[in-house]
């Protein structure tokens, strides 16, 4: 598999702020890659560098085999971008903007344009100023999704969409995946990431702290266990990988690192298990752990 995006050692400073600090990112061709991180972590900055809108201080970035700063125009023919803050020209209608961006990219698929307008329930005849935030985002989405490009770069594209439209968006991205397109999706919506992304990268303070498939990441998390035992629990306290243990008589509650699950369960069984509930790790917990560490 080849890389659609590969970034290594990227640094970008804005005056005293170090927005990106030795960032490495790898997006494989054909995958939907989630890009997550707390506010101000550097997601939009990374994306802007990939688009040649900002110039990196150091490090290398390759996009579709080219240099995003030097081969800008050639690369932009092969990608579409939905910004986080979509601002439209007040006097242009949504339809005019969609056609403009499409033509600038070298033409758009008319049938898909019509289909997307229908699916997103967007009226293309309204003037830019009169669209709501969500509808402005839909204009940018329709423009991007109806172009025949290899790579979609989406910066929080659904932050203004209602749940119904969020579902439409997810369908559309799944269609894109089937068409073999690569998607870089920055998002704060975990359900969306969980539903769409093949792999995710988590960025914090301008640095990627975790990257891999969701299964990989889950592996790094904890399972919560609560059990009623035949006798008093023994030996649990001292076991590696057990956290937040609460014991009341024969009942225990604790969390265990996913990779230590096996020995800990064996220990439980040795005390005789009457009831057992286990909760698989949620993504929320995973992300919250990464997000909170910034503080």
């Amino acid at each position: 598999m080849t890389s659609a995006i590969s970034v290594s050692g990227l640094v970008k400073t804005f005056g005293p702020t170090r927005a990106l600090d030795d960032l490495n990112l790898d997006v494989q061709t054909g995958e939907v890659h989630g890009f997550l991180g707390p506010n101000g972590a550097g997601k939009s900055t990374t994306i802007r560098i990939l688009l040649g809108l900002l110039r990196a201080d150091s490090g290398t970035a390759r996009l579709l085999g080219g240099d995003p700063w030097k081969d800008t125009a050639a690369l932009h023919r092969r990608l579409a971008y939905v910004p986080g803050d979509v601002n439209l020209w007040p006097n242009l209608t949504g339809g005019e903007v969609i056609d403009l961006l499409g033509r600038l990219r070298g033409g758009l698929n008319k049938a898909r344009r019509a289909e997307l307008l229908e699916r997103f329930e967007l009226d293309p005849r309204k003037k830019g100023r009169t669209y709501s935030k969500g509808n402005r985002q839909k204009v940018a989405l329709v423009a991007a999704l109806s172009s025949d490009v290899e790579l979609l770069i989406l910066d929080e594209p659904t932050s203004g969409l209602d749940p119904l439209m969020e579902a439409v968006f997810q369908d559309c991205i799944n269609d894109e995946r089937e068409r073999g397109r690569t998607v870089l999706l920055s998002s704060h919506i975990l359900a969306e990431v969980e539903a769409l992304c093949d792999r995710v990268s988590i960025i914090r303070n301008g640095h990627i702290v975790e990257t891999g498939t969701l299964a990989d990441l889950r592996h790094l998390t904890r399972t919560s266990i609560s059990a009623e035992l035949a006798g008093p629990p023994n030996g649990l306290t001292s076991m590696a990988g057990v956290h937040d243990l609460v014991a009341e008589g024969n009942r225990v509650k604790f969390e265990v690192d996913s990779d230590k699950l096996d020995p800990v369960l064996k220990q439980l069984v040795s005390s005789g298990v009457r009831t057992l509930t286990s909760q698989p790790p949620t993504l929320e917990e995973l992300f919250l752990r990464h997000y909170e560490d910034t503080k």
Partner: protein
Amino acid sequence: MIGTLHLVRLALRRSRILLPVWIFFLVFTTLSTTTALEEVYGTQQSRALLGATANANSAFLAMLGPLHDWSTLGGLVAWRWGVFAGLFIAIMALLVVTRHTRAEEEAGRTELVSAAVVGRHAHLAAAVIVAGGTSLLIGVLQALVLIGKDLPADGAWAFGLSTASVGLVFTGVSAFTAQLSENSRVSNALAGGFLGVIYLLRAAGDAAGESGPQWLTWFSPIGWTEQVRSFGDNRFWVLLIPLAVFVVLVGTSAYVVTRRDVGLGLLPTRLGPAHGKIGTPFGLAWRLQKGSLIGWSVALFVVGVIYGSVAQAVGQMVEDNPTLGQIVQQIGGADAMVDAFFATVTQLIGLISSIYLVQAVLRLRSEETSFRAEPLLATPVSRWGWVASHAVFALVGGAIVLAFAGLGLGLVHGLQIGDVGTALPKMLGAALVQLPAAWVVAGVALVLFGLFPQFTGVSWAVVSASLVITLLGPALQLDQWALDVSPFTHVPKYPDIVAGPLLWLSAVAVVLLAAGFAGFRRRDLTT
């Protein structure tokens, strides 16, 4: 009205640099104009001569109004500076009001603030208080400065309050235009257009002569300041008219505020086409800039028509006046007077056109800060192509705008002298020679955009400096080096057009433009 005080404080904070600059500029120019006039026209004779020429010269009449009282220094100040002070304070007031009403609303900040405890009228009230208060403060300071120069107090107050009255009227005008459209640019354009109209109304009235429609002056807020006759009759009662207009406009605007939704205007927005025809950066720039190009072309054509129509009268008036006739013969006769008139007028037109050019260039910056450039530059559009698509409106658009001014001058003057064939090309040329100087100003704006994007606002300081230096420099007796700062100083004066300065001005403009382009190609997009 709850929360008005908070908003006033917020507005003052946001404009803590802009307002002092305006106040200083207007008050200081009052002072320096007085000092300069005192030196040049110290004697009764020199003033008498000025009085005779000024009131006989339609160019002066149209540009500055009549010199009602040339026997005192105060009368000279009121004549030389009164109309311009009114123009400038009007621009200040309309920019300030729009900035704190419609522009805020457009940016969505009004919603944010309105959701807090703020009365329905608080935004309008705060903007009116800030703009109106600044106008009054400028008026009072002007009066004090004049009194400090030992001019009669009643005249000084009449003058200061007259200037303030124009500020008040335009506070009202732009409070009203801000209600009409959803777009602050349109609001400014409407108010600015109105300012142009009322300036020209009084120009036509003042230059009309005994038999002409002198009453036109009475339909102009700037005309009212002339009718006060500061340092002469000091007719304070005339100021009741602008006061009434101010009250009516603000009242109407306050009424409209209660009748419309936040974010929307009175002018309805309609549905547009579902499919677009625009497919190139230039196509988009044309769509965004054509309104302003057409508006400026029409406006400058009208300016040309008005000045063109009084040119002939300049010659006749002096011929009718035997004593003046002699003086005029010495400087080359009536034709020379007409030529001098055109030289002044085309220079003025060139200066005004530079506002258009700079505004066309700065569109780039507003597209960038509003995040509208970003999606465009994420398509195959090159940085170069995007900048060029707007810059062409400054470079070629500037030529078009000036050509329309020349067309207006040439057509009307040609019809009057019965020789359009000669007058038209001459006047077109006289207007177009201003272009290289205007390009230089636009070039400065593009350099700022390319290299110092946070400071593109300085472009307006450059425009203002060129205006002040060129229009008032000679009266202020500035040194030659200071006059040389304005590119318009170097434009050859009609009818002695030589190519040299035009070529090197163009070369300077090319260098500036290239630097701006190169700078932008290399820099980050910023907001």
